């Protein structure tokens, strides 16, 4: 399977925007590195002892990590101790722990902050609520609260337990690594963290376009039926029909599917959201209508056309007869891994989720990705994946050192997110240097060549056990750096870090390419869900009922158990069953926002 993939080669020159993001100091540092410079202590970081540095600068082919300048007024003297909550689990070697590790030692040297663990949780559903509720009930809130779930956040707000950080933020937040980085997409990052124009916390930011779909397609099947990649929904229909008629699949006779789908029409894997998007609507999303009010897309008339189309496809055998019994994660094994489907709308990470099974089961399988096909009126839209999950970082009311934490955040953000700094963990924490053959030895999954999870032991963003950053383009910037700069470095000049990252199997490379592609189309092709706050009162009461009704109706229309006109009755039931009231409540919030 090696090197047989038809990569969609993309032009990946770094944009002007990338360079603007990178700030002057780091460019200078990068230039110094290019000039073949040298031991770390020569870089003006005399205050930080060499043994605290990340990277492996003292090994023959080890790498140098450039540290950003120490923030003004830091390290603070005397040092301060700040308590914080953390999501676990973690594992440390050699007597280190969460309060005393490579990260905290470097952090203490740079900022003068010592972190103390208040409490931790590992289960992100029940346990996190329990721990926070306990802290609230016992009046023992930590200074800094990590990844606070939405309902805890609203409880804290209702009870006035959170510090308003607006003024401190305006004064000390770093212009590039905090303010600018978090200003993407019209400031959507602040929808939760900002309440009535006041900043009540720091947004939790994941990577851009993480769940934005591309069309994954079996190139070898396309070649076999003599067709090219579909660019319209009609062409998509022809390709699906051709796959099914030629029975390209690996299963029993007649089990080939047109496209992989599951019980959720708008979801994170094997989704149908780009089909709905081709008609300009997005089920479960709230979008602005022509009057500037928010409308619930699931009940818009265009949906009926899409359901009619899907119903037609189902009756033609293009969808699995029981697609609606599958949850998204179950598609990867049965339909994709089992080589029953040669098409799916999945995110970039689909390259390493499902496709590896597919290739293992059929060594001739060659997957490629392409843009999503356009609808009958030329619309090309998909669900915009929001990099701001329903969680925030907040500070305890009365906490005095918000400014220090913000400075710390900016310093680590710059260290991690500027690829020119070449941060990739500490020896002994993320990897071991092996002198005998001059190789690095990743420790388990921590030196994950695509996941960057080795930073999860830092306190507060951009660290945290879950991958939050301050810049949603961080990962893509790294990919671009690897592909545009590192890959152009002559092989004999590459250091161990470059070598580790430039290797990688074809599917990981495909993942990188799809990631860059999805990020480039993120803003232009995405339909955004504009309702981003706690559920309204009527949603709490009637939401489960209405959501159930919606899911049931959609599925039963598609699979032919109910007539297409059932949709009209559903819209009426939705509106009278609480939907109208929800719409009013949502708009009350929406107009209060602006």
């Amino acid at each position, binding site marked *: 399977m090696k090197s047989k993939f038809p990569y969609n080669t993309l032009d990946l020159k770094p944009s002007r925007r990338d360079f603007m993001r990178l700030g002057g100091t780091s460019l200078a540092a990068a230039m110094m590195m290019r000039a073949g410079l040298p031991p770390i202590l020569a870089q003006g970081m005399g205050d930080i002892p060499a043994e605290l540095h990340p990277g492996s600068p003292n090994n023959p082919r080890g790498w140098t990590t450039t540290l950003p300048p120490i923030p003004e007024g830091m390290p603070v003297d005397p040092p301060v101790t700040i308590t914080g909550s953390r999501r676990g689990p973690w594992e440390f070697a050699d007597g280190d722990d969460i309060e005393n590790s490579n990260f905290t030692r470097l952090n203490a040297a740079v900022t003068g902050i010592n972190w103390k663990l208040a409490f931790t949780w590992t289960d992100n559903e029940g346990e996190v*609520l329990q721990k926070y*509720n306990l802290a*609230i*009930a016992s009046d023992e809130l930590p200074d800094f609260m990590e990844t606070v779930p939405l*309902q805890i956040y609203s*409880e*804290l707000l*209702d*009870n006035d*337990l959170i510090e308003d950080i607006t003024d401190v933020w305006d004064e000390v937040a770093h212009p590039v690594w905090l303010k600018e980085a978090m200003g993407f997409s019209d400031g959507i990052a602040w929808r939760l963290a900002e309440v009535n124009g006041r900043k009540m916390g720091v947004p939790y930011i994941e990577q851009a376009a993480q769940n934005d779909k591309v069309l994954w397609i079996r190139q070898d099947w396309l070649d076999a039926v003599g067709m090219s990649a579909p660019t319209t929904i009609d062409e998509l229909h022809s390709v699906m029909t051709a796959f099914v008629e030629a029975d390209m699949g690996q*299963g*029993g006779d007649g*089990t080939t599917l047109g496209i992989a789908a599951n*019980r959720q029409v708008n979801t994170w894997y094997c989704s149908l959201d780009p089909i709905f998007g081709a008609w300009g609507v997005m089920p479960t999303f709230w979008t602005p209508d022509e009057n500037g009010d928010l409308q619930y897309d699931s009940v818009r008339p265009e949906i009926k056309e899409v359901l009619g189309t899907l119903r037609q496809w189902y009756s033609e055998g293009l969808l*699995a*007869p*029981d697609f*609606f*019994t*599958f949850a998204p994660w*179950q598609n990867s*094994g*049965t339909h994709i891994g089992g080589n*029953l489907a040669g098409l799916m709308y999945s995110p970039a990470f689909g390259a390493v989720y499902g496709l590896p099974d597919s290739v293992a089961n059929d060594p001739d399988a060659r997957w490629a990705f392409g843009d999503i096909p356009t609808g009958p009126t030329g619309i090309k839209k998909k669900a915009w994946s929001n990099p701001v999950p329903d969680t925030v970082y907040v500070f305890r009311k009365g906490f005095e050192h918000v400014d220090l934490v913000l400075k710390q955040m900016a310093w680590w953000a710059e260290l991690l997110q500027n690829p020119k700094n070449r941060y990739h963990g500490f020896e002994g924490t993320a990897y071991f240097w092996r002198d005998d053959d001059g190789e690095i030895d990743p420790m388990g999954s921590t030196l994950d060549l695509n996941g960057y999870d080795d930073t999860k032991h830092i306190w507060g963003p951009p660290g945290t056990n879950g991958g939050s950053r301050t810049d949603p383009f961080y990962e893509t910037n790294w990919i671009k750096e690897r592909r545009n700069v590192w890959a152009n470095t002559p092989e004999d000049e590459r250091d161990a870090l470059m070598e580790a990252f430039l290797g990688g199997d074809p599917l990981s490379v495909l993942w990188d390419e799809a990631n860059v592609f999805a990020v480039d189309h993120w803003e232009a092709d995405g339909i955004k869900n504009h309702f981003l706050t*706690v*559920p309204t009162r009527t*949603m*709490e*009461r009637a*939401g*489960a*009922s209405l*959501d*159930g009704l919606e*899911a*049931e109706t*959609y*599925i*039963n229309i598609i*699979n032919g*158990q109910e007539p297409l006109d059932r949709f009209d009755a559903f819209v009426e039931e939705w509106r009278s*069953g609480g939907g109208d009231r929800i719409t009013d409540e949502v708009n009350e919030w929406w107009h209060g926002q602006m």
Partner: protein
Amino acid sequence: MTFKQYMKRAWPLYVMIVPGIVFVLLFRYYPMYGVVIAFQDFSPAKGFARSPWIGWENFEFLFSLPEFGRIFSNTLIIAISKIVADQLGAIILALLLNEARRIFFRRTIQTLIYLPHFLSWIVLGGILLDILSAGGILNQALRSVGMEPQLWLGSNDWFRGTVIASGFWKSVGFSTIVYLAALTAINPVLHEAAAIDGAGRFRRIWHITLPGIRPTIVLLAALSLGDVLQAGFEQILTLYSPAVYRTGDIIDTYVYRVGLISAQYSLAGAVGLFKSFIGFFLIVISYWLADRFAGYRIL
């Protein structure tokens, strides 16, 4: 025997029972004050003491749900079918295994039917989905003998049957073992005497084995009445889909979806209390039944 003599002999028994009583008091009775949240608009920040009281509102909301009739009847139908299938199946299996002559054969079967008991529904759900899917092994087998494939998990005609059958498969081994244990308590002399009198296998089962385990049957059947609203949350959550809400959605899965939108402690508390109330009622009835038909009394 005086009380003093009795205590001298029996005190270790009383000491042994103490941890059990403490456990029950601590973990079963002490938390009971928590049921107050069913009548509150509970917020953990305010706690039990300061959360506002709202009377029966949570119950009114529950009973006024448009789906309440549907989820209530689904719960009852699935739970009762499961109880009946499980008890009948376990009795029959226990009798069959009891008659098996080769110990090796009996032990093997016993272990095999007991095995699914140890797997979680998450694991079994994934396995069942593969077996029962449209292109799965069961439908392929049906097709190869010329029968129509069915959507076992996706059609309202089959979903309950699938749930009951798979629940049976998972739990029957455990129930069987309880009955097998009861069967060993029957005095073999009775069987020998009956055999000498010329009774065949079926006669002996009918006149000796079944009457011998009658108290166990009545007791287990009666106690299982308390489970009449436990249709199997985890199982249904892993197997169902919106297409089968009509026949497969139960109270627990519905409340779970309500909780997904926002944690509603009070509503969950009200549902728990409602289920406990019905369960309590049925336990009382079943205790009376157990006394009436099996002579089972606590005091």
